[in-house]
């Protein structure tokens, strides 16, 4: 497949793996402990597991799977709100596919659909707007979800609805922003991350300048990375090169897609329709200041939260769930107390088991081989106390 196969070339990968192994030899930190690299975005996590990249990296590199799966970090209370909206009479509730299975405190959207709610899967907010045009006697609510990647298309859809004077369309806004979240991770007292693979598609919208504080203030290098396996390998190589040369900066591996200043039109649309919330609740991470957006007053008539009663109850994460520690790289998914026992992809308890992009689900689905190898090599490791990262 053109423009895809080029980025999955096994021969080029071999060269990169060799180069990475050679670089690791020359990095001081790697002689004392594994270097922890966080891939912020769930799309990276998915690729890493899909291509078996982690198992082929030298032991001195440890990948920490970050918070960048918007489906995973959605708190239970917000799912309950979705269900409440979907169950309003006359409502067609539209959502991206992978939000269907996320468990609320009582049910998921999929269960709500089975119970009679009109929940429909769409590929774009414009599909939802089309449904509103076709069903003038129904209220069509779109479940707006995701980081800056999906925010512009939602904003543009609201602007389009306004331009056409469509009154039966509204948005349940759960968009979140990446920078405050990375900052919260950096401020966490148990931080162990040495460097970051920056989220490629978010950066396509916001550019790579917003990450500069990570290098300047927190002294952690960032490489904005693409999603194909060679992109990820090259980005890891670029990070290692910074460590080896003693540099600490923001670099852009994904420059075929990511402009340094981002996408001006997209940012304008976002700024027109949305404003920052004071705080937003994250599953596994708790409340983070300025980490979510809501619809501005001027567009209130498109805001499902203003149009309909929404319970907005805060539901605490289950106590035994250690998603927060996994997200911050303090423990590996398989070191969580409930991983694979009380928490599985069939019955997810924690955020990270919900979507295929969640670190725990990825380990559970794709990573069992590594687990089996670890269990044979170190029988005690799997039962280790949660606090310590066992060497691989």
């Amino acid at each position, binding site marked *: *497949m053109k423009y*895809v196969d080029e980025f*999955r070339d*096994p021969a080029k*990968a*071999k060269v990169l793996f060799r180069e990475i192994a050679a670089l690791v030899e020359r990095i001081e930190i790697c002689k004392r402990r594994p270097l922890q690299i966080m891939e912020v975005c769930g*799309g990276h996590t*998915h690729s890493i*597991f*899909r*291509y*078996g*990249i*982690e*198992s*082929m990296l030298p032991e001195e590199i440890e990948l920490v799977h970050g918070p960048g799966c*918007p*489906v995973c970090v959605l708190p239970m209370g917000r799912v309950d709100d979705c269900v409440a909206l979907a169950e309003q009479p006359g409502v067609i509730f539209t959502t*991206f*596919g*992978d*939000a*269907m*299975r996320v468990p609320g405190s009582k049910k998921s959207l*999929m269960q709500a659909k089975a119970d009679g709610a009109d929940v429909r*899967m*769409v*590929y774009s907010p414009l*599909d939802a707007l089309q449904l509103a045009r076709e069903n003038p006697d129904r209220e069509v609510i779109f479940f707006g*979800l*995701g*980081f800056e*990647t*999906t925010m512009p298309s939602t904003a543009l859809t609201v602007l389009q609805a306004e331009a056409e004077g469509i009154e039966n369309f509204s948005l349940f806004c759960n968009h979140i922003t990446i920078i405050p979240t990375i900052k919260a991770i950096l401020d966490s007292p148990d931080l162990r991350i040495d460097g970051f693979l920056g989220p490629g*598609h978010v950066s396509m919208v916001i550019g790579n300048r917003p990450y500069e504080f990570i290098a300047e203030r927190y002294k952690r290098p960032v490489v904005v990375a693409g999603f194909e*396996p060679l992109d990820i390998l090259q980005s890891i190589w670029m990070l290692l090169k910074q460590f080896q040369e003693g540099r600490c900066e923001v670099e852009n591996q994904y420059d075929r897609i990511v402009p340094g200043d981002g996408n001006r039109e997209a940012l304008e649309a976002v700024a027109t329709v949305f404003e920052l919330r004071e705080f937003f609740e994250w599953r596994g991470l708790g409340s983070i200041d300025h980490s979510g957006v809501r619809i501005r007053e001027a567009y209130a008539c498109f805001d499902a939260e203003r149009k309909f009663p929404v319970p907005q109850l805060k539901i605490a994460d289950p106590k035994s769930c250690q998603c927060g520690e996994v997200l911050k790289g303090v423990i590996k998914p398989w070191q969580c107390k409930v991983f694979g026992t009380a928490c599985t*992809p*069939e019955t997810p308890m924690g955020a990270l088991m919900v*979507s*295929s*992009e969640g670190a725990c689900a990825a380990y*559970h*689905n*794709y*990573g*069992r*081989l590594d687990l*089996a190898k670890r269990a044979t090599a170190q029988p005690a490791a799997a039962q280790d106390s949660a606090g310590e990262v066992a060497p691989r």
Partner: protein
Amino acid sequence: MNAPLPKSAERPGAPVRPRRGKVHVPTVTLAHGSGGKAMRDLIDDVFLGAFDNAALAPLEDQARFDLAALQAAGDRLAFTTDSYVVDPLVFPGGDIGKLAVCGTVNDLAVGGARPLYLSCGMIIEEGFPVDDLRRIAASMRAAADAAGVAIVTGDTKVVHKGAADKLFINTAGVGVIREGIEIAAQRATPGDLILVNGLLGDHGAAILDARGDLALDSPIESDCAPLNGLIEAILAACKDVHCLRDATRGGIATVLNEFAQSAGVGMEVDETALPLREAVKGFCEILGLDPLYLANEGKLVLVLPEAEAQAALAAMQAHPDGRQAAVIGRVTEAPEGTVVMNTLFGGQRVVDMLVGEQLPRIC
């Protein structure tokens, strides 16, 4: 294998009973399911007209077969059933009728049986266009002819609007397994090779595409086809087929997991060896789907000793339904009950059973 067909299935031939009834209204109503004259007209016009064979024609409550003839064809009877609820009813490469025949024929054939007779149960939502029903019945007949089977008994129900989605079809099938064929999932043995008969995931992609959500320029066609001819060719070329299954819902990932778990062995698949159409690859890329889990309706997974693999491959590639057949992997001792993929990068990952439905990722 080539014993004469039992008499009652002899086709074609003029109907024994002259056709009488005719439907003169454009849509099916509850009257057509009432058991009265309207129902008789529907059966006469739509189903007898299309299926047309000696076993069906007397319209008794059951089809009757000569046991001796069945016995001459093999030493075991195979019996299966499947229901078809596909949406949309018509899609590139087929329709619900073709699917209902091919699916049940294939369920018989992958057990090594020679499919002979099918039943056809129709559950129709009131208001369904009679012409569409005629087209679907004709498509069932064409598929039955292609597979060399006869539809010998049937049932028609009409339900209130909303009680069913347009049309559901159930087909059951009977076939005969000849002596000496022992195909079973638990026979997968370390050292065996794993083969497929062609491009994977076409049906699943075609159906998703036909639902119109993505509006691709060039539609992907379903691979819906009867596999009994291909399977006869394989069985003629190979003495010892261990496992054989058609990879329908859940795709080849599901079949391989079933084999691995039944036999308590590992299954190792090479990503680079998987035959995939470029359009299906692209479709999966856009939607974030894994082609290993996409449904097929004309693809089988075959496991047999390495010594027989070349003969099986040659037999498949010589058959129209197996031109792009390929060896995709091998059976291993460990890890027990697990399917492992050697990624094109040289890494490894587990290919698990699917949890629920495959849902497109958001970004």
